[in-house]
């Protein structure tokens, strides 16, 4: 009976990992730096949004509705509407941000949302000029 001694003993070297630092990301305590350009939730610079509904038209999932904002942000907004996104439909394909004529609609890198009520997934994009800057 031939015994592969090296093959039998070499898995035991894995025990050495016991004394190494774990590689786990303890999420709720430690958050990872999310990459710039990651396709997370929407932001919309309402001071340049012109309410053209290009995003609504291009959306293949029928996820975007145009609704009235609480107040007028941009006097040049042609329809007086701003987009609202249904996160029960969105697939983060980023087509809406690609066609946006004033480039006001963008994707942030925040992407985490859990809720116990499935009716809570209509999302008003945050009013942010650029990623990392809050104007509202």
């Amino acid at each position, binding site marked *: 009976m031939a015994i592969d001694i090296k093959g039998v003993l070499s898995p*035991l070297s894995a025990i050495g990992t016991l004394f*190494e630092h774990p590689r786990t990301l303890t999420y709720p305590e430690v958050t990872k730096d999310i990459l710039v350009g990651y396709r997370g939730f929407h932001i919309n610079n309402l001071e340049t949004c012109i309410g053209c509904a290009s995003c609504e038209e291009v959306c293949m999932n029928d996820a975007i509705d145009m609704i009235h904002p609480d107040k007028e942000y941009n006097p040049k907004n042609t329809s007086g509407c701003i987009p609202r996104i249904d996160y029960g439909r969105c697939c983060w394909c980023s087509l809406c941000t690609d066609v946006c004529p004033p480039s006001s609609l963008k994707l942030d890198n925040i992407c985490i949302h859990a809720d116990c009520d499935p009716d809570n997934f209509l999302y008003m994009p945050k009013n942010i000029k650029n990623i990392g800057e809050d104007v509202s």
Partner: protein
Amino acid sequence: MVFQIILLIMLAYVVGFIYFGLYRNITARIQGRYRPTVYQSFYDSIKLFSKKQSVSYGWMFYLGPIIMATGAVLTLILVPVFSDSDFLRSVTSQGNLFVLLYLMVLGPLGNALAVGTGGNPFGVMGVVRGLTRLIGLELPFYIAVVGLIIAANSSDIVHIIDMQKIGGLNIINHPLLFIGAMISMVGFFGESPFDIPGAPQEVYSGPRTEFSGKFLALLMSQGSLFAFAKLVLIVDLFLGGADSLEMLVLKTFAIFVSIIFIGIVYGRYKVEQAVDFLMKLPTLIAVLGLARVVWFG
């Protein structure tokens, strides 16, 4: 004495579950991740006992976990926990190794009856695998135990412990028997090269597939009791027993850690491979040890 038995069961319950928690900790660290708390198994057990529903298939289904728990508790109270004290000695004097060897098989058989009642094909498959494996596991372990009995000239565990106090530990005197028994003990703990009955990727936790809630909690509890009993048995047979609680914990923990290290790093055998391996290498080692005992004392 009843009080002592209850105390022992409680001790075994706590120590067994903490060992299981440590097992999960060590596994986690070897896999490079943070661990659950040591008490995680207690949480699981209390949650399972407090589940509002448990599926049952009649009285035979109830008996399965109970027979297993009976086997575990009887094994526990028949194994002498402390060598020098009178703790549980009155029970221990009435039991010997043959009764223990019988009781170690009682659990799987009782479980087989219950699983058969459930009728789940994965459960039945797991039981068949478990009983097939048992053939391989028992052979080296029994040969090792017979070797010890011949060496000590007695089947009384207390006598075997006393012999070790005079003539040195069995692990040094009879290393071949120890190796044979330890390899099959890895299987008795359901550890990795021999974890074929409950292989989750193949037979969906095997014999336990249909057990839920209270039944699963009872199975977990008896598992921890039985694990403790088996560790104490190995300590008694090969490491000369334990005088105090500290020595007991130290010795059982040493055995436990070596078993789980083997369990974590190796992959799983197939059914035939496991039986084939157990029938060859550990049996050969144990037979050599037995021959050494018979011819050279």
